[in-house]
């Protein structure tokens, strides 16, 4: 018996921490469904981070640790977004962990 996220009319398998089992299962509906389960409605600001993570993963094959994410976001989107206060407001369960989950990536390496 594996866990799953209900996305529209089908079930997408996730691991015991809620991360996608198959990264290829991801689409925007998956992210929206995961967020809805956390009672969060994804805004453009959320998507900016989620898309950034997906690009980072495509480039480096690694989900960045929170410190790396914060720095890299700052570099790309500016210091008003590259700080933990901003990112925690968007992703209160921990920006790297939660945003990576919505982005369909594995749990970040270096997050315990």
């Amino acid at each position: 018996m594996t866990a799953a996220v209900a996305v529209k009319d089908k079930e997408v398998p996730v691991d015991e921490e809620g991360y996608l089992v198959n990264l290829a299962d991801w689409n925007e509906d998956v992210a929206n469904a995961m967020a809805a389960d956390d009672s969060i409605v994804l805004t453009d600001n959320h998507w900016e981070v989620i898309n950034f993570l997906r690009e980072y993963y495509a480039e480096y094959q690694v989900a960045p640790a929170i410190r790396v994410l914060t720095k890299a976001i700052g570099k790309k989107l500016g210091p008003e977004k590259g700080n933990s206060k901003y990112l925690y407001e968007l992703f209160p369960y921990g920006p790297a962990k939660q945003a990576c989950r919505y982005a369909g990536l594995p749990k970040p390496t270096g997050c315990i």
Partner: protein
Amino acid sequence: MSDTQETEGKQRNVKRFMFLNRKAPYGTIYALESLEVVLIGAAFDQDVSLVFVDDGVYQLKKGQQSKGIGQKNFSPTYRALEDYDVEKLYVERESLEARGLTAEDLLVPARVLGAAELGALMEAQDVVLSF
């Protein structure tokens, strides 16, 4: 004076860690394990060096395409090390030469050092972790 004291105070808490990589990727799990330990360890702000010796130099070979063997190609991750503030990468010249490789074949900038220089670097470490 105060600058010196500050530097010394900082150095007391920072240890020199060398990750010595001697195995080719894919054939065994050592290369990937080492990389993961480096990424996790980066959070501790230590003085980290990555050294590639023997078949370990193959970890940095450009153009890896591992899809056909059903394993994840983790080689792009070496290029993310900079984001993790891991910037000291060294490759042994003798190991490169024995494999017909040059710095041009590597997917990330790394300093090429001879065995004698690397031996000295190894001696200067607080901890050497072998993979």
